[in-house]
């Protein structure tokens, strides 16, 4: 599958790789350069492989409330909420963002790898409820514009976005069509995501790149998208959340609200009471070796878990990782990661690895 922007990626020198069946740019000029562009200036990403589904009708709010670990009911119109969905047995189906236009009109944005599964899940639980569900997988594209200069840049093209607060969105006209701009993202920087009909997305992509030149804009591929999200300790489905990793075990455990009812709650409560579940933490490697997904994690010569994601942090110049372990650990606890034949020292650290919203640029000033 390809997004409407594939030829644009090729013309910018993008190295195209297969991502869950999608031909996507891994990088253009290089992962580190693109990462730093987002941390210091602004980067634009094609994330059209994610899927948008609309859920409308009198039953929409109750359905989404029931499927989500996080609170959905009663939120203000124009808000976006990150949540996990789980199955009746408490397994993570996906993590996603629920956008509320009104009490009877919502849309969700889901992971590329889970598009079909999420739609089936949604249709299954919508049975006998008053809702209309439509996927917009083919007609919509999605852009992300992220970095300390993303908001001034987008305000030049869309002055209506000035003052838009985090986790809020608005719908506005562009070339005689409606597009949606939300203050959301996956990098920890200020920025927006734009939901745009595919017929307009090439035009908008080019317009943003042109207007962004004085801001130092760079096109950013999936490689830097991963290092950026990992510095923030954000989950990536298939790594920190999966069929085998329950939301209460994951870095997204904060979404689970026990004072509401949701699908999978009973199973999760039983597991919580049994204390037989795992925990995810951030670690920073003390040496130079890089902990990668699947590497075993040890403490006192006993394996306690595995690495779920790991990379070199381009901001910290240190190797960072998220680990899934059997026991409760606290900040500064020592663990070891087996990198090839060697046990390499690491310390548990609070997430995110670096502060949100570019505060790290002011460190030491």
């Amino acid at each position, binding site marked *: 599958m390809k997004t409407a922007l594939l030829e644009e990626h090729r013309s910018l020198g993008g*190295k195209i790789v297969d991502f869950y069946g999608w031909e996507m740019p*891994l*990088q253009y000029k*290089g*992962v*580190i350069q693109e*990462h730093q562009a987002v941390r210091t200036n602004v980067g634009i990403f094609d994330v059209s492989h994610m899927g948008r589904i609309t859920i409308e009708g009198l039953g929409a709010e109750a359905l989404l409330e029931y499927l989500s670990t996080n609170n959905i009911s009663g939120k203000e119109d124009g808000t976006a909420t990150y949540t996990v969905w789980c199955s009746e047995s408490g397994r993570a189906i996906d993590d996603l963002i629920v956008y509320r236009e009104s009490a009877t009109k919502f849309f969700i944005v889901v992971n590329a790898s889970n598009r079909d599964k999420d739609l089936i899940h949604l249709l299954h639980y919508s049975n006998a409820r008053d809702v209309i569900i439509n996927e917009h997988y083919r007609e919509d594209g999605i852009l992300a514009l992220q970095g300390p200069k993303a908001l001034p840049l987008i305000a030049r093209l869309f002055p209506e976005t000035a003052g838009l607060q985090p986790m809020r969105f608005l719908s506005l006209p562009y070339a005689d069509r409606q597009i949606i701009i939300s203050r959301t993202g996956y990098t920890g920087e200020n920025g927006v995501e734009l939901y745009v009909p595919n017929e307009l997305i090439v035009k908008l992509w080019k317009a943003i790149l042109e207007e962004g030149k004085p801001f130092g804009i760079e096109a950013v591929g999936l*490689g*830097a998208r*991963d*290092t950026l999200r990992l510095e923030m300790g954000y989950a990536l489905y298939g790594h920190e959340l999966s069929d085998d990793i329950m939301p209460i075990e994951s870095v997204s455990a904060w979404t689970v609200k026990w004072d509401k009812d949701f699908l999978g709650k009973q199973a999760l409560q039983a597991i919580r009471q049994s204390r037989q579940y795992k925990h995810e933490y951030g670690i920073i490697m003390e040496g*130079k*070796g*890089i902990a*990668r997904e699947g590497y075993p994690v040890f403490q006192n010569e006993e394996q306690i878990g595995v690495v779920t994601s790991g*990379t*070199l942090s*381009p901001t910290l110049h240190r*190797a960072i990782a998220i680990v899934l372990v059997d026991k409760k650990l606290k900040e500064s606890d020592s663990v070891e990661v087996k990198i*090839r034949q060697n046990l390499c020292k690491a310390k548990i650290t609070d997430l995110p690895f670096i502060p949100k919203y570019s505060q790290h640029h002011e460190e030491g000033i």
Partner: protein
Amino acid sequence: MKFTETHEWIDIEDGIGTVGVTDYAQKELGDIVYVELPKVGSEVKKGQEAVVLESTKAAADVYSPVSGKIVEVNAALNNASELVNTSPEKGGWLFKLVLEDLEEFDSLLDKQTYQAKLP
């Protein structure tokens, strides 16, 4: 200079081979952020893993093109692993070894044959 199908190069001077990865390999790997070098004095066999190149995405093994004893490693890479990207066939060399068998070198690919194999 000779090449392998796994994208290493080796150059020989006075019986000592200098080994690195090709420009094609560094482009495929992307930004190299850490290089795990072998120990000086260790012995490697042809085709054996000798170096690990860590990119932002993954760890990649570098195989020794020939058998021999490692006599020097490129210490500059400890603080400047990006040399593998910027100068893969010069400043970004990885290790030097004394060849056990010169015929192993002769049997490697010449530049033209290697380049013809690239996609």
